[in-house]
């Protein structure tokens, strides 16, 4: 059949398309909208840069090294050092917690569960993505925070020799660990969904081959599923990272906002760029708002890099799975 198709195709090259007035008009409209969207985003970015300018010129290089955030005082003293640190730390914590759970549940759906159970579990995990972030924040502060205090105390008392869990003040509450757990719940669905898709692309022939060589199910996963889906898993993790970096309201509700750089994740305190914008925006003066816009620009730059990396990795995985170079 294949040869016949090619033969026919060679004999009769396709006729050139006829483009009528409606077609042309339609093409113009879609091209115009595409152009407009691109230009709009460009213009908006230019405005953002312009509005960040005053604060950036006022703070100079201290914008990146200063930890405190008092942009409206005279002399103004503000910088994003603590905010960037908190943003990265909370996101990394979230990933450390979420990725094993997400990969585990993706494996359950693709390798262990029957079709019906798999569909139900997949659906339930997607339901987690439908919960608005403010609900996660309220739940985190009202439900999870009191229930996590004993656990954090246990960590501080028994694993306190690890600097990460050390808590000399013996105070517990809105800590980075709590923020990490709440963020983990929020990035879990996206990581699980992407990894599940990647695992679903693993050719059954490879699975059968591994079983045929006497592998147990776990050995099959380790030798076939993981190597095949490695790129996709990395992409999923980076996508989750992008989601966690920009999360705002849940963090603003959960964290006891302080501006320090500390790895003690059981101690209350810390802040992120996004949460800082949300909490400081209302009270900020003109320099304050400019400073917040500048920090937002930095957040945008960070997520931009992360998104582009994630897209690249996911595209490569898709090509790999389809057997294209």
């Amino acid at each position, binding site marked *: 059949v294949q040869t016949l198709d090619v033969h026919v195709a060679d004999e009769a090259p396709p006729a*050139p398309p006829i483009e009528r007035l409606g077609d042309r008009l339609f093409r113009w409209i879609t091209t115009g909208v595409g152009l407009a969207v691109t230009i709009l985003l460009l213009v908006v970015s230019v405005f953002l840069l312009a509005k960040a300018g005053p604060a950036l010129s006022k703070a100079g290089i201290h914008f990146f090294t200063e930890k405190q955030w008092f942009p409206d005082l005279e002399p103004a003293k503000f910088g994003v050092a603590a905010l960037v640190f908190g943003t990265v730390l909370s996101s990394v914590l979230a990933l450390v917690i979420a990725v094993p759970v997400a990969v585990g*549940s993706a494996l359950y759906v693709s390798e262990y569960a029957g079709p019906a159970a798999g569909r139900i579990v997949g659906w339930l995990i997607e339901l987690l993505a439908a919960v608005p972030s403010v609900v996660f924040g309220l739940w985190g502060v009202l439900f999870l925070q009191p229930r996590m205090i004993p656990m954090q105390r246990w960590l501080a008392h028994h694993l306190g020799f690890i600097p990460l869990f050390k808590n000399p003040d013996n105070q517990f509450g809105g800590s980075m660990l709590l923020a990490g757990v709440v963020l983990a719940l929020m990035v879990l669905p996206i990581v*699980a969904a992407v990894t599940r898709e990647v695992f679903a692309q693993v050719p059954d022939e490879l699975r059968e081959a591994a079983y045929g060589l006497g592998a147990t199910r776990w050995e099959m996963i380790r030798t076939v599923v993981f190597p095949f889906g490695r790129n996709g898993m990395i992409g999923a993790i980076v996508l989750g990272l992008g989601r966690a970096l*920009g999360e705002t309201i849940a963090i603003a509700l959960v964290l006891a906002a302080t501006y320090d750089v500390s790895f003690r994740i059981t101690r209350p305190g810390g802040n992120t760029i996004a949460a800082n914008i949300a909490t400081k925006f209302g009270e900020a003066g003109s320099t304050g708002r400019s400073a917040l816009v500048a920090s937002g620009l930095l957040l945008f730059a960070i997520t931009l890099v992360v998104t582009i990396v994630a897209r690249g990795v996911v595209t490569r995985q898709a090509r790999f799975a389809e057997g294209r170079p």
Partner: protein
Amino acid sequence: VTELLTHGRLQRWQAAVSAAAGVAVAAGLFAVTPMQGRADFVVVGYMCAVAGYLVTAARIEGRRQAVDRFFHALIVTAVATCLLALGAVLVYTAARGAGAIKPSFFRNTMNGVGVRDTTGGAYHAIVGTMEQVLLASLLAVPAGLLVAIYSVEYGRGRLATILRTTVDVMTGVPSIVAGLFIYAFWVLGLHQGFSGFAAALALALLMLPIVVRSAEESSVSCRRRCARPATPSASRGGARCCRWSCRRRRPASPPVSCCRWRGSPARPRRCC
């Protein structure tokens, strides 16, 4: 025969007994050592039960099978954790919120309501949410569809590359940055002030890439499904370009409306 098949395999009753033994060990630990607490017991008991089960499995079936069972248990635990968290969020929110859901919640606003008053409602918030989401959809859905059509049907050359990159970038924009975009552009830059419309603009910025991506996906998959077998005949029949979905074809046109057919039939290219 049954004995032959089950010989050297972990039986259900063996698994159950060893898990129960693990729980018993945990209970003993809680009785003797200073460990206490219900949640602690659940966690430690579960770990001990799994440990007992795995030790028995290793004795009967060998190391490889035990490792397999260990990861099986781990994965089931991961799923259970997910579902537990989801359940906790849903149940707690419903339980705490149910008391506030009464007719006045939908009728009253928070206008002039003090902190201690119990008369307020969310009427204004509900109306505002619907208003802004509707406005944002009106802006983002048509624009997003057109962008998707452009990208799938005409998308070649530099503009298309730039547009796809733009949409990629937009998918990663955090919501707070979208808000700042509109604040810097609409509120400060164009001196329009804070408004519900400005909020709708920010929402539209967040919606657009999602609309584009899903429209592209459905359009491309639809085209892939219909393009393959019929394309040569379709193009020889003078199929017109630029029909963007199978469903939107004209009744008079050939069975599958597709773009100019180039390359091999297995791989229809982007065209027009």
